[in-house]
């Protein structure tokens, strides 16, 4: 017997701080946007533009694709905020690690 049953309540459909997840149509739309984003990245690689704009656009597209998956497909936009804090904490630590390692050992993105 669950705690909810002991208390005479039904299990809530959604837990605290959660919003309903989007439907299949939005998922497919996001999938199309992700595919276009990746195609743009490959196009930038072959465009032969100067290094700075290429790096800036590639990194920007990478970040957009990353967060589109995390926010919509992994439902971070709809789930409890605490989960977002947890994951963003990991990302911030990773970013700090990146900066420290690259700066200390004299490497860069290009």
């Amino acid at each position: 017997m669950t705690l909810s049953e002991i208390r005479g309540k039904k299990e809530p459909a959604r837990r605290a701080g959660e919003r309903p997840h989007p439907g299949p149509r939005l998922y497919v739309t996001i999938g199309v946007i992700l595919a276009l984003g990746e195609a743009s990245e490959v196009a930038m690689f072959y465009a032969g533009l100067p290094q700075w704009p290429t790096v800036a656009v590639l990194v920007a597209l990478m970040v957009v694709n990353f967060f589109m998956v995390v926010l919509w497909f992994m439902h971070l936009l709809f789930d409890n905020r605490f989960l977002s804090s947890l994951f963003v904490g990991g990302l911030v630590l990773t970013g700090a690690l990146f900066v420290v390692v690259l700066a200390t050992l004299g490497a860069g993105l290009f």
Partner: protein
Amino acid sequence: MEHAPAAERALETSTGIDNRKLLMWLFLASECLFFGSLIAAYLVYRGDHEVPCRAGDLAACVFPTDRTVNGVEYEGLFDIPFTSVSAFVLLMSSVSMVLSLAAIQRGDQRGFRVWLMTTALLGIVFVGGQAFEFTEFHEKGLSLGTNLFGTTFFVTTGFHGAHVTVGVLILLSLLVMSFRGRLGQAQSLHVELAGLYWHFVDVVFVVIFSLIYLLQP
């Protein structure tokens, strides 16, 4: 005595979040650091492959992209069109994964199985592509010990491939559970957790594809 389904066993927690989901997100946050370290190591050491080349060790003159060193032109290893297709396959597997979750959450078992099978197949295609790529690179002279580019490249992408393989095994076990009637709408959290892992593996490759394959010095 029969056990209650997982969703029914879920107790109320002080955070309001299911502990299993909380643990998965904590694990994924730690995985960020794991892959972040590997990618940073690759970015630091990828340039060091030119050192043995300058010293005259031709066997170590293997480069990610076309390069001219000391007036000698070398053909790069990376096959960007091929890896782009692999990246696209993994990206689309994320779409099918989230569609399988949506299907089981509305009680559509058939839709769930079709989308989950699609996801597993796309994952297998990705892993197959990576095995082909590794074999090609090995035949062209790049191995774990050739130079620091080889070491950091194989370790980073190899660990990612291992994660995808584990993901495929998780998806296939979910399929088996579904066919045995042990995975219904009430147990959709299992699919959600597997989905979180799968999407994470996908976003890691989004980063690997951009920073390792496309951004070249």
